[in-house]
Structure formats: structure tokens, C-alpha cells
């Protein structure tokens, strides 16, 4: 089972694992370690962060995690002395630990704790220690002394897991009929009192948290209030399982039981655990596509970005067809327009639709490879909201990457700073802050971040490569990614604030700025955005700039389609010699429109897309009121 889990993680979740690592940090650095230890549970956090960095190689990180889960399973059996017929019970807390991580989805962008992937399983293992350690002690006083030391030192090192351990130990003692009555009462009461009192006493030594948060220190934390309880619940339940198992140690075991009933019960427990994991495992195509595209953007592998997008679109073609057929059948049997509307609405989520992050990543990649005006409007578009408990602003998710790549490097830096405060340091922010300082030629500042990344295992080499660029403008301008970012930095400085709306800010930037020395790259991006926002005046204006700076001989098909459409809408004469195919395509579109009655755009979207999905006309009429975030 562990091997299957590892395979699934490596094959299906590698980009999620990479993102977890990318948003975490571990530095072999005195200040970093000291900062971590300033909070109860800091040592656990350090250990968790240390292991998280190995997710950089997903196979290795996944292996470590699976091994720890395996150890948790085995130790649960051993520490609670579970007989053969109750062993499947040990799978339940392990399943909960898996669910805790794999149900996170978009929550990964809001995590404050850099250790959240490994710390819960480490904490789970740690909370098993007191029971096994106290079991070896004979004298009551030694057990009490141990618990006192454990809860005090353990709270500092492992946070609340120290208390769980003490309570588990107390519960097991309470139900252990082989122990004297005095001990059965004293140990659990001591464990409970210590767990309640130690945080109150020790609080004066800390300034990093609220007193009322004492009993959740060491548990993963997230910057969304509405998500906090749901995110922590699986981990807390896994600890509750320990308490229940400890109380269960007092139940008499029927020993080896091979009866059919027992086999069925065990099998059902296994199946339930697996089903639970399967049920809560976050599986969302858009999310996973975004993660893979983000991974490729970080490596400036633009073809990979485009292919990933196309792969996601292609993988849904059959499902879309089926959904359309099914919907058509339902519509045929519908009795009223309201019913049709309701069917269309109900089915809308069954059709594939990309998120804005996917579109922005894709457009960026198309621009970087100079294919945008040719291909952007031949690809599926949309604005599906995230399948998420709360909508994560693009600024948190992809803002740094998009701003940097579009030359808005100060805005990228700003979001790195905000990210650090809201969600802690990460390899990602350190990298983007380095790149910001390198491209701005601020060598002292760059050195600060480079020296931090030098203290990592997987970014050391990259950091050293940046040192040579930080004060050598020519070398920087010739190196990736700077070479492809500098052409976008041709605008004048101005004051701005994105109000946490990345796409809107990018649109405003490219539509409002008219650099005197605009580069061909800048004008291509501006024209693309003018077409995206379907602003006819802006389109003609930006088209003129584009033609001038790009010395275009033949305009891309989508641009010609926009020209013929806009001329027709404005009833103006078009001087440009359009491609004959474009003219025919436009006529065919008009004929189709006039020969088909359109009840609602939403309903007509799919059949139109099948026929005209690769034209600008389709984009213009059907891709309206797109949501952004």
C-alpha cells in the first residue's frame, strides 16, 4: 500500500509536492534556526522544514513522507500493542495524516507554516514517545517527573504534540488494570494538569503567540480563518485516534481471531481508510494544470507551459462531448425556457473551463515565444473560479511570476514582501527577490538574498550563478530570465497599486502606459491585451504601435479577424488587404449566426466553439464578463 501511495504521489502529485517545497524554506543559518525556535514547537517546525526541502525532488520527498507514515503505522501497532485483528485501526490515523496533506489543494498558497507537510507526521510520532517511555518506568514518581519534564521541554520543542503524548500516556495508564489504582489515577490527572498548566507558566518566556493559542502550537497554520479548522481537523483527529487507541488498550483482546467476521471487519476497516483517503484527496484538473504551468514558468520553459495547457484542454474533449450530448437530450425533453436555463446552468460546470491563472500563464508563454497573436485566440478561454473553499487572489498564487515576467519587477518585489509577512519566507520569494535585485542592479540587496539561498541544498548553485550577474549589467541582460524580461521594462516609472487584482493591474498597465521607446515585445503584449479586453479603440491604437515596432509584413490571423469584425461593427472601411481565408471565415461565421437561433449565449457556447472556437469572433461574442481574482 505504501508503494502505491508513493507511486501516486510521484506520478500524479509531483507538481503539488514541488509547490509545497517551493513555498517552504529551510536554511542552514543561525538566524533562521533561532527564529524558528522562538515559538513553541519550533524544533518540530525545523525538522519539518528540513524534510520539506527534499520535495524539490518529488520522488525523494514522497519517499521520506511515505516512510514516516509507514513508521507511524508500525509504531501505532507496537506502542498500543494492537493485536492482529485490531491492526487495521492503526491505518485510520495514518489515513487522516494523508488526508491532512492531500486535501489541502489551493490552501497550499495560504499556508503559514513552512513545515506543514512533514510536521504533523513527525508530531504524531513524537506523541507516541511518552507512552512507550513511561511504560519502561516502574516508580510512580519517575513517571510523574518524566511527564513534567516532557511537557515542559516538549512544549518548547514540539508544541502541542507534547501534551497529546502526555495525555495518551495518561489514558493508557488509566485503563491499565495491571497497575495500582493510585497510579492509574495519578498519572492521567498529572498529564492533564501539566498539559493545562505548562502553557500558562511557560507563556512568559515567549512573545510570538497569543496565550489562547498555546494548545495549537506546532499544528499547521493557514492565513484563512474559514479554512483553519478544516485544515487542522485531520491532524487533530489523528491525535484523537491515539487517545482512543490508548483507552482501547484496556479492552480485552480476543487474541488471534481468524473468523470470517473478523476478516470482514478488518477488510472493511482497510477499505474505509482507503476510501476516506480517496474521497478527501484533492483532485482538480485546473489546480494541477496550474501547478505544472507554474513549475514550467519558474524554469522559463515556455513550450512546457503551452503544452501543459493544451494537454488539459485535450483531456476534456470527450467529457465535453458527452456532457453536450447529455445536455442536449435533457434540453429536448425540457418543457419550458426556465427549465432549459436550469439545465444549462447545471451542466455548465461539467464543461471544461480554464481558470484565469491558466490563461495568464499561457498568454505569457505565448508572448515569450512570439506566438501569442497567432495562437492565443485559437485556444480555449474562460474564467472558471477555483474549486476551493475560498478564492485565492492571483497575487498570492501567480502574482510574483506574472509581474516579474512582464517587467513589473517592483510589483513582484512588493508581493514577495507581502507574502513573507502573510505566509512566511519561502524558496520562491527568496528567488524572486534575488531576481528583482539582480535585474534592478542592486548588488548589496541581491547579495542578501543570494547569501540566504546559498545556505540551501537545492538552490545553492542557482544562487551562485546570480552573484556573477548582480553587478554586471551586460551579463545579466544576456542571461535567462532577464533577457526576456528587460524588453518589457521600457515604461516610465509611475505610482500604482494593484488592489490585489493582478490581471486587472496588468491590463491597466499595458493599456495606460504608452512608452516612447516601446519594444516590439511590449507592443505585442499590449495588442494582445487590447484584444483580450475587447476594446475596439484600444485595439486600433495598439495595432498601429504593433505594426510600427514589429515591422509586420503579414498580420496574424486572429488580428485580421479582429480587424474585419471591428470594421464591420463600426461600419468603417478596412484598407488592409485581408487574407482571403479570413474573409471567407468571417462570412461563414455570419451565415452560421443568421441561420441558427441563439436562445442563450451560454447554451450556444459549446456548438459555436466546436465550429468557431479558434476564431477571434468566438472569443469576442462568447468570452464576455470573465471573472478575475
Amino acid at each position: 500500500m505504501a508503494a502505491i501511495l508513493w507511486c501516486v504521489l510521484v506520478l500524479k502529485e509531483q507538481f503539488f509536492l514541488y509547490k509545497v517545497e517551493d513555498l517552504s524554506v529551510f536554511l542552514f543559518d543561525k538566524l533562521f534556526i533561532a527564529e524558528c525556535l522562538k515559538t513553541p514547537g519550533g524544533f518540530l517546525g525545523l525538522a519539518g522544514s528540513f524534510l520539506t526541502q527534499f520535495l524539490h525532488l518529488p520522488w525523494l520527498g514522497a519517499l521520506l513522507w511515505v516512510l514516516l507514515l509507514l513508521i507511524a503505522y508500525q509504531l501505532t501497532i507496537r506502542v498500543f500493542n494492537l493485536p492482529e485483528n485490531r491492526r487495521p485501526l492503526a491505518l485510520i490515523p495514518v489515513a487522516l495524516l494523508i488526508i491532512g496533506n492531500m486535501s489541502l489543494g489551493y490552501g497550499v498558497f495560504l499556508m503559514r507554516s513552512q513545515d506543514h507537510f512533514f510536521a504533523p507526521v513527525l508530531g504524531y510520532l513524537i506523541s507516541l514517545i511518552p507512552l512507550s517511555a513511561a511504560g519502561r518506568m516502574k516508580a510512580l514518581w519517575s513517571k510523574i517527573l518524566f511527564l513534567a519534564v516532557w511537557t515542559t521541554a516538549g512544549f518548547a520543542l514540539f508544541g502541542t504534540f507534547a501534551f497529546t503524548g502526555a495525555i495518551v500516556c495518561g489514558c493508557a495508564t488509566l485503563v491499565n488494570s495491571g497497575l495500582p489504582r493510585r497510579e492509574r489515577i495519578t498519572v492521567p490527572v498529572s498529564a492533564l494538569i501539566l498539559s493545562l498548566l505548562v502553557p500558562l507558566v511557560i507563556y512568559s518566556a515567549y512573545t510570538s503567540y497569543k496565550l489562547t493559542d498555546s494548545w495549537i502550537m506546532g499544528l499547521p497554520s493557514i492565513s484563512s480563518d474559514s479554512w483553519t479548522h478544516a485544515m487542522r481537523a485531520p491532524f487533530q483527529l489523528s491525535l484523537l485516534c491515539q487517545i482512543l487507541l490508548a483507552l482501547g488498550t484496556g479492552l480485552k483482546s480476543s487474541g488471534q481471531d481468524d473468523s470470517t467476521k473478523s476478516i470482514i471487519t478488518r477488510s472493511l476497516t482497510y477499505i474505509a481508510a482507503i476510501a476516506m483517503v480517496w474521497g478527501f484527496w484533492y483532485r482538480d484538473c485546473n489546480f494541477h494544470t496550474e501547478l505544472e504551468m507554474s513549475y514550467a514558468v519558474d524554469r522559463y520553459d515556455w513550450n512546457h507551459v503551452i503544452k501543459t495547457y493544451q494537454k488539459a484542454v485535450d483531456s476534456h474533449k470527450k467529457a465535453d462531448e458527452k456532457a453536450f450530448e447529455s445536455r442536449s437530450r435533457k434540453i429536448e425533453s425540457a418543457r419550458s425556457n426556465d427549465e432549459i436555463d436550469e439545465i444549462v446552468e447545471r451542466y455548465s460546470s461539467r464543461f471544461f473551463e480554464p481558470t484565469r491563472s491558466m490563461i495568464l500563464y499561457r498568454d505569457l508563454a505565448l508572448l515569450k515565444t512570439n506566438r501569442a497573436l497567432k495562437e492565443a485566440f485559437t485556444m480555449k478561454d474562460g474564467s472558471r473560479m477555483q474549486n476551493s473553499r475560498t478564492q485565492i487572489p492571483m497575487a498570492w498564487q501567480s502574482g510574483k511570476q506574472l509581474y516579474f515576467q512582464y517587467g513589473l519587477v517592483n510589483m513582484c518585489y512588493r508581493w514577495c514582501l507581502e507574502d513573507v509577512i502573510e505566509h512566511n519566507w519561502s524558496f520562491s520569494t527568496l528567488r524572486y527577490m534575488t531576481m528583482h535585485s539582480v535585474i534592478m542592479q542592486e548588488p548589496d540587496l541581491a547579495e542578501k538574498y543570494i547569501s540566504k539561498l546559498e545556505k540551501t541544498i537545492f538552490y545553492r548553485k542557482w544562487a551562485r550563478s546570480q552573484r556573477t550577474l548582480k553587478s554586471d549589467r551586460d551579463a545579466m541582460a544576456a542571461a535567462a530570465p532577464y533577457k526576456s524580461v528587460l524588453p518589457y521594462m521600457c515604461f516610465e516609472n509611475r505610482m500604482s497599486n494593484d488592489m490585489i487584482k493582478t490581471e486587472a493591474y496588468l491590463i491597466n498597465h499595458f493599456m495606460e502606459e504608452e512608452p516612447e521607446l516601446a519594444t516590439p515585445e511590449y507592443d505585442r503584449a499590449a495588442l494582445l491585451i487590447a484584444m483580450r479586453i475587447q476594446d475596439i479603440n484600444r485595439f486600433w491604437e495598439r495595432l498601429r504601435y504593433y505594426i510600427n515596432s514589429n515591422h509586420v509584413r503579414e498580420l496574424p490571423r486572429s488580428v485580421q479577424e479582429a480587424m474585419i469584425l471591428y470594421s464591420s461593427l463600426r461600419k468603417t472601411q478596412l484598407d488592409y488587404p485581408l487574407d482571403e481565408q479570413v474573409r471567407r471565415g468571417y462570412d461563414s461565421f455570419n451565415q452560421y449566426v443568421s441561420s441558427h437561433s441563439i436562445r442563450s449565449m451560454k447554451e450556444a457556447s459549446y456548438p459555436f466553439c466546436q465550429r468557431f472556437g479558434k476564431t477571434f469572433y468566438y472569443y469576442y461574442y462568447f468570452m464576455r464578463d470573465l471573472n478575475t481574482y
Partner: protein
Amino acid sequence: MKHCITIVAALTLLVSCTGIPQTTVQTDKVPSVFPDYTNVVIPSNIAPLNFRIEEEGKKYVTVITGGADKAVIGGQKVEIPPRKWRKIKQHGLIGIQVFVMDDDSRWHSYRPFSMSVSEDEIDPYISYRVIPVAVESYQNLSIRQRNLTNFREKVIFANTMVQTNADGACINCHSYRDYSTDNMLFHVRQYKGGTVMVLDGKLHKVNMKTDHTLSAGVYPSWHPTHDYIALSNNRTHQSVHSASHDKLEVLDDISDLILYDIKNNTVSVIENDSSELENYPNWSADGRKLYYVSYRYDGNYGDKRKNEMFLSREDFHFNLYSKPFDPDTKTWGPTKLEFDAAARDSSITWPRVSPDGRWLLACISTHGVFPLDQIVSDYIMFDLENGSYRYPDELNSPFAESFHSWSSNGRWVMFSTRREDGVHTRLYFSHMDENGRFSKPFALPQRDPDFNREFLYAFNIPEFMKEPVHITPRQFASFISGTDATPAKYETKKGE
């Protein structure tokens, strides 16, 4: 010159000592060290000035001498044992010679440098806010106090002790009455907000926002003789530079000045001209005059005001004004223009008068009200005795200089500067002689000399203190969490 001869002579005597290279190649340059502690003037009660040698080499030896006392320290990081440091600095002049072994195993001896120990002591404590360099978020702020005679740093209060995920609490503008911590204040914004005041050792929380004033109090200045605090009221906004080495621009679209009467818990208006952006009040040493800065803005008052202000930010030239005050009758005299910065295409901010009342040190920049985020921000110093002023180049750097504080004896200035990397504000000190000349600034000493480079937070609002804050962070936290702010009463309207 005399100092140099003494140092060379002392070091020559030491050459024969064990551990110090015997045969060396002379290098006619002072070694590069970080922080730059070469030839600085330091107070006699300061912690060891540990530094890193920034020269390439295989091995390092540093000889630190003061009179007959010496310390020989190996390694690129020179961490001076505190006991030896105390003995060495007793002699008034510290000589430092650095030896570096090159790849061919030859020792190079660099030109010695010195540290002059001033007889003027520095206040033993300082406090500052440790803040992530940020734009809008403020999840992790703390006000800390540092013992300057050693490396001990403690948190006075951290916002993490009260805020929740959903309800953030910004803390800012800590300030002390006459360098004493029995009377101090800082503001808590938003969650559990209010001005937290310690008055004669007792905690209070006040809401200085009234129906007649713009906001709660912001930048404070305690009256030197009476129970008053002058504060600004500000409505502050931030915006990001899209393509500039300056990252951020901060401005107030409205700001006024108020006077808080501690005894009566009342707020009265000092200045609230709607066309004037009054800011940064600071009392003269005798408390009979209030200095402040202001800029006249006649622009739009609607929704577009803020955006228009950002667009025309480069025209914002704040001048220095003063206003006479009679503390006994609590009456104000007419406003006087003290320095017309606008006429010099400049903007003056953060005026702070020395405790003896003779000097006024302020920030000067090309425009705007928030020097922290302006690379071009420097200092300007006024001699209030004769009205002259000068730009103290001894203090200024190519990066932003911002908030500054006078020591209680007026002989030391502590200031925040971004000179090290352009973004992270660090604290520097400088000695001022009786003529108002500053010595070369030196960085706040740290146990690990790499600290300033490694630390990813910034320091701001540095203030001197004669003693540590005695109230514990836990006491502050439980008070702030458990107490509602007492509303201040509005006393008078201007002109009434």
C-alpha cells in the same frame, strides 16, 4: 597623527608576542571591515564592536590594543571578548591591526585603524521596532529594547501576542517622556486598538480619535515640562513605484496636529487647516515652541484626491514651521515659517530638537513626507542659536536616512539608514561635538558581525532610553487584550 604614532608604537611592541605574525608584508591600506568601524568615535559604555574582515585570505589575526591591554583574535570574524573590551576601551584610544595570510602563506599587515572612546556616555538602552520590510501587511511586528552596553535584546511587545488571523493589530510610534520608561506610549491599530500609555508606571489605553478630529494620534512628542503630548493625525496611503529604485511612496491625503492633555484626557486641535498637511510635531527643549512641518495642498477633496496626490507627489515640498505655546495657559501663538524648504525644491520632515535646545536635526528630501522610502533622503541640521543650517555630510549616505533620536545628554545621535543595501533599515550612531560636527557613524554593534547582512527585518523608530521598560510583554498583552480604550474628550475647536 599623534594617535597613529601611539598605535603603531603599541603594536610594534606586540609583534614579538605569541600568535601575532612576525614577518609580514606591509600593506598601505586600512583593511576593509564590516560593519565599517574604522576610525570611529564610540561611547565608553558601548558593547564590543565586533566586525568581519572583508579581505581575501587563508588566515586572519587581529590585534586590538588599548594602552597596555590587548586582545589577539584569530579568524575572519572578530568577536571581542566583553571583559577584554572593557579593559581596552578604558584607555580612551583603541588601536586595531589586522594581519591576513594570503594563498602563498605570506602574512600581510594592514594599516592600523583606531576607535576613539569619547568621554560622553551614551544612554544604556534603546528601543526600536523590528518590522518586516513591507507594503501593507503587518503580521509580525515587535517593539524591542536593546542594552547598548552588551548584546541583550528583549521584546517590549509584539503584535503576535494579541492579533488573530482575521484581525491584525499594527503597533507603532513608541515614545518616552524624557527618556524614562515610567511614562511612555505606543499605538495599537485596528484589533484591540488604542494608544497604550504607561503613566507613572501604570497602564492606560486611550482612544484619541474624537468626532472632531481626523484620526487617533500618530507621531507623538511629549511636552518636556507639562502633561501634554503633541501628536499628528494622519490618513496615510501607500503606492508602489512601478520602475524605480525607490520601491514605495507614502503620503497622507489629510493630516492635522492635536494636543493630548494627559491629566484631563482631552484632545484639542493645534492645527487643522484643511489645505495644510501638518505633520511631525516636536517640542523645543523648553516646551514653549512646537516645531512641525507642513505642505499646502489645494487639490481635490473627492475620491480622486489620493490618486491626484500621488501623481503630483513630486511637488510636495514640506516646510518647517513653529508655533509658540504657553504651557501654563495652554495657548498658542501665531505660526512662523522657520525654513522654506519649498524655495529650495526640497521637503523637510522629522524635525527633532536636541535636549539642550540648540540643535534641530531633520530629514531633507526632494519631495514628500516619508523619508524612509526615499533614496535621496538626507539630514539637515539647524543651529537654533544663530539660525544657520548645514547638511551634515558626515551622517549622510547615498541611501535613505530617516528617523533619528538624540541621546539624553545631546552628544549622540542614533539614526536609521538604508546605507547597507538600500532596503533594510539599520541603526547607526554618531558623536556630536560642541560645534555640532558629527563623527563618522558606526553601526549598532551585534554579537555576530554578519547580523546586519543576514537579518531580513528592518529596524525603525529608534529611541534612546535611560532604563529598560519594566512592564513585561505578557502584562502589555493581557492589558491590551482585556481593556477597551478610554475615549479622549474633545476640548476645543480651533478659533473657539
